Structure formats: C-alpha cells, structure tokens
C-alpha cells in the first residue's frame, strides 16, 4: 500500500487502462493539453497523443453522444464532464441512448462508456456550480452509478468501469481530489456493486456515500467519545443498484438507521434507502429511520448560508442524539 492523493489515483487508473487497451480514449473539456481540471489526466496527452486524449468543444451532449457512437464499434471512452452541473446537458444521450440501447436493440448493441464527473458543494461556487445529481442518475434503468469515497475506490472503480460492458457514471467530489489514502501498489479492480463497512458498530447504522461517508465517520467518533453510542458506518459506494443485502445486514444488527446525504432530501438516496429498509427489514427497526440532508434550496453564495444549507458531522450527531434521547 502507498498513500496517494485522490486525483493521483484517478490519474493512475486512466494511465493503466490507456496502456492496457488501445481502444481506450479520454474525452472532455481541458483533459488534454491542460491535463484535466482536477489533474485526472495530467501528462497523459503527451504520453498517448491527441487522438486518444481528446480536448472536446464545450458540447456536453454532443461529445457524450459521440463517445457512445464510438463505443458501438469497440472504442472504450472515458468521458470527463468538467462539473456535474454541466451533465444536465448530456442527459439526453446518457439516458435516451446509452442506458437504453442494449434493451431496445434486443441485446445487439451496448454502450460501454464511462462518464466521470466532479460534483457536490465546494466553497462558495454558487447555485449553478453546486449540483448534487446522483439522485437523477441512480433512477435510470440501464445505467450503473458508483461514487468513490477514497482514493482506493476511485482508482479501482474507474478500472472496473472501463472494462465493464455497461455504461457507468462515476460521481466524484470536487473537495476530495486532494484527499490522501492508501491504494494497493499492485493492480486493483474495485467492484461496481455492493457496499463497504467503513466502521463497525452495534447501536445505529449511519449510511453515507462519497463525501458524507466522512461526515458519518467523524460523527461516529464523536458519538463514541461523548455519548457512548457505537455507530456502524456503511459506505454505499454503489448508488445503482443499491446494495439491499448490505443495508439489510447492518440494520438487522443495529436496528436503527440514519442516512446522510449532501443532496436535498426529495427523491434522493435517503428516500431510496428508507424504502429499502421498509421492504427488506421493517420489523428489525426499533425506531423510524431518519434522513440528514441538505436544505431544499439552490445553494447560496454567502458562506454562512452555504454552511447552513449543508449537513455536517454535528447534524449527524444531533440526529442520533434525538433518536436515542441522549
């Protein structure tokens, strides 16, 4: 194991997959000469050339569709959408073509593309650069959605996603690219389905994904230290399909559930996990599950207001305290 930064892990996965298969290409705005807005393709333009590391025009739907068409002929495009806010413009091709072409062709065609995109709320980027779009992507049949919470996952997921024959959307976080973490030195492929136990506990399960895993872990430490509550943290690194078994197993042990999401509550990961709890293990629950979500507002520029709109570890601690009455 070595400690590297998140962006270095993503870059390494790109590099290895480009070296492994000549049909792998990278497309996106500023991925080439610049090396990616978050350095995910730094130096790869010089190594693999402009035919494979392609600086695209600012035409999200166009280049996503182009990548999908190329994938029909065996090309394996990794498409970087500079910010998830811009992925709205590519949804036509992602949803109407990539997610449906296998089905509506009766299995004749597939679109093995990877779309990676940084999202989430960074610092004071304002309403139009603070989207959290995982809830939209995870509702579409035919699309896989994964979201890494650390460099190991980011590296291994991208590698598996490139080789998988389904379209995969990888939801990254703008604040996490400089996060350090251990990544195996040997080649590693992370699964595209499932969840991970990020912390063992017996009293309550905190469900997180991507950045909210870290809020859950921080809250678990505070709860253990200050309130004698041992929380289990489940990292839902796959948002589609959600890991029903992992969700059921943990709550069958702890009997209590809190879902922590960076997004607005409506039609989100929390809502979906609650539905799964109802369907899978309703009678295991000692109390009603709770969501900790962002406020239902466009994200404000003002720093204090932005902080208020967003959940954090303290909000998670408060939710658990209310649940236990401590």
């Amino acid at each position, binding site marked *: 194991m070595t400690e590297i930064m998140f962006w270095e892990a993503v870059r390494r996965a790109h590099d290895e997959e480009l070296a492994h298969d000549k*049909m792998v*290409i990278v497309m996106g705005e500023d991925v080439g000469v610049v090396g990616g807005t978050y350095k995910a393709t730094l130096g790869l333009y010089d190594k693999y050339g402009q*035919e494979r590391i*392609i600086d*695209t*025009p600012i*035409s999200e*739907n*166009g*280049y*996503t*569709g*182009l*990548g*999908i*068409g*190329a*994938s*029909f*002929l*065996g*090309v394996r495009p990794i498409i970087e959408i500079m910010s998830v806010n811009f992925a709205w413009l590519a949804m*036509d*091709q992602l949803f*109407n*073509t990539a997610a449906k*072409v*296998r*089905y*509506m*062709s*009766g*299995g*004749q*065609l*597939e679109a093995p593309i990877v779309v990676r995109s940084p999202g989430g709320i960074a610092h004071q980027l304002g309403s139009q650069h603070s989207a959290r779009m995982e809830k939209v992507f995870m509702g579409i*049949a*035919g699309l*896989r959605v994964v979201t890494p919470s650390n460099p190991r996952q980011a590296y*291994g997921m991208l590698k*598996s*996603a490139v*080789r*998988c*024959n*389904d379209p995969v959307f990888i939801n990254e976080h703008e604040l996490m690219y400089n996060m350090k973490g251990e990544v195996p030195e040997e080649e590693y*492929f*992370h*699964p*595209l*389905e499932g969840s991970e136990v990020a912390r063992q506990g017996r009293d309550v399960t905190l469900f997180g994904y991507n950045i909210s895993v870290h809020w859950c872990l921080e809250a678990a430490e505070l709860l253990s230290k200050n309130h004698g509550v041992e929380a289990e943290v489940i990292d839902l690194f796959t948002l589609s399909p959600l890991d029903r078994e992992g969700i059921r197993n943990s709550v069958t042990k702890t009997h209590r559930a809190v879902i922590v999401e960076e997004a607005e509550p409506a039609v989100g990961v929390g809502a979906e996990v609650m539905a799964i709890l109802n369907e899978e293990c309703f009678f295991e629950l000692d109390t009603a599950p709770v969501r900790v979500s962002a406020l239902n507002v466009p994200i404000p520029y003002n720093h204090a207001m932005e902080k208020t709109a967003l959940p954090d570890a303290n909000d998670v601690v408060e939710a658990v305290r209310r649940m236990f009455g401590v």
Partner: protein
Amino acid sequence: MKIDTKKRLLREMLFARRFEERCYEAYVERNIGGFLHLYPGEEACAHGVLEAADADRDYVITSYRDHIHAIKWGADPRKVMAELYAKETGVSKGRGGSMHIFDVRNRFMGGYALVGGPFPLAAGIAKGIQMRGGDEISICFLGDAANNQGTFHESLNMAKLWNLPVLYVCENNHYGIGTRIDRSTAVVDQYKRVSGYDIPSHQEDGQDVELVYKAAMKAIRHVRSGKGPYFLELMTYRYRGHSMSDSNAYRAKAEERMWSKRDPVIMLRDRLIDEGNMTADDFKDMDTEILDYIENEVIAFAEQSPEPHISEVERYVLAENDPWVRGGGAP
C-alpha cells in the same frame, strides 16, 4: 446507371412502398401498436444514397422513420415486420418496435426516436472507424427539422474538427410533423447551414433516384477518401401524415398534388417504359409478385412468430454476468 440496376432499384422502391402501405393496414387492423412513421414518397432518398454506399462495410444510422433504410441495408423484411408485430423473431426481438429497428450484423446501427439524437452517434461511429484505421464510412439520415437541434451544430463542428468519415443526409420533406420548414427555420435551404463549419454540401432532387445516386457517389467519394464530413440535402415529400396519429390536415391540397406528380416510383417506372426497357405489364407483374411476397412471406412470418417470453422482460437491461461488476476474476 445500368438498366439492370435501374430495374432492381424500381423493384426495391416499389417493395418499400408496398411494405409501408401494408404496415398502414396492419396498424389499422391493430396488429402494429405505438407510433408508426411511414416512408412513402421518400423512397428515392434511402435507395439512391445507399445504392452508392458499400453494403459490406459502411454503417447506417437514422431516426424513427427507419424500416426502409434497414431493409435496404440488408435487414430481412420478414424480421422487420415481425418487429412491428412485437414478436421475438423481430430484428430487435420485439423490444424495439417501429422506431427502434436494429440490425447490427448488417451494420444498421439503429433507429432512434429523439429528434437529432443520431447526429453525434454517427460522428462517434466515424471516430470508431478512424481509430480502427479502415476506409468504411458512417452514414446518418435525418429529417429537416432535426437540424434545429443543438446536436446538429455540435456534431458538425466535431466532425469537421476531427476530420471524421461521416456523411450526413438530410431528407428534407419540408415538415417537422405539422410545422412547415419556413415557419420553424430561419434558413430554409439546409445545405447552406453547414457552410459555417466549412463542410462541403449539396442540394439535390430527392425524388429522382438516379440524381440522388449521382450526388451520393460524389459525396461518398469525398468522405471515403479521407477528406472529412459531407452534407447532402435531398428535397422530398412524405405522402402520408407524420405518423399514424397525424391528421395531416395542415398541408395544402395543391402542394400535395404537385408532389404526387413527382412520385419517385412512378418517375422511375415511366422512365424505364419510355426508354423501352420495360412494359406496363412487366411493372404490373412485378407489383403482383411483390404484393404476394409481402402477404405470403412477410405478413405470414410476422403473424406466425411467437411473442417474447414475459419472463425475459428484465433481460438486456445490463450486461449478463459481467465479471468487472465484481471487480474481475472468475465468476
């Protein structure tokens, strides 16, 4: 054009006409459901262009008005009809329907229902060809109204920028459903709109299959020789409503009469008769043969085929047993 080729094209276009007319009846009989967009009036476009292309290597993609392009590109008409009848033996196993005819074995890369959706897909297919190093080309047929989508401009820009081997064919039937082109589009001549991307283009009579063929030969020579994209606009007309649910009340009778005098099938028939290469009786015999074939082979096959198993409704959503979902290794 050789006489034999002309005769074969007449047979193919007449077959296309009769096939689509039979679809109309089957829809009225409720054997075909959903949206059904028919091609009568526009036959010379697909046949002229694809006659000039190479059926053994080139790729074709189009919109929802797709039956005839697929058949001209090698799809078995029986399987196309079976698809319309929602049968397991259909080209897309009954999952696609009229708007989603796929025949990938013959490089017919599908019919798509989002107006303008295939523009970037065709450019992507051309990118795939370019990466593999072949001299095949990607051919995209779309309507006139599709050119008002952003994908039109995005795709033309990328196709030119990266010198992609793609031929865009605009079947200009003057309408997007009920909106006449001059009411939706600032520049009515579509071939002029691509000049902003420095892409060569040409406008041709889309009712005369020989002229279409000639124009397509020139266009395809350009694309195949590595000179990048080309845009071919074909002036045409659809004789029926936009789809079966269209009242078709928005067009002037005089306009319809004018275009019915330029029927691509009749024009070619009359030419062959005038040239002394065919008699009116020959044509009648050809028609009878086609009608018999459609009834006895095409419709019979579709009617007698089984429906898909309901138990398979969740198949083809995702790849089956893809090892990378588990992080690689043995299953």
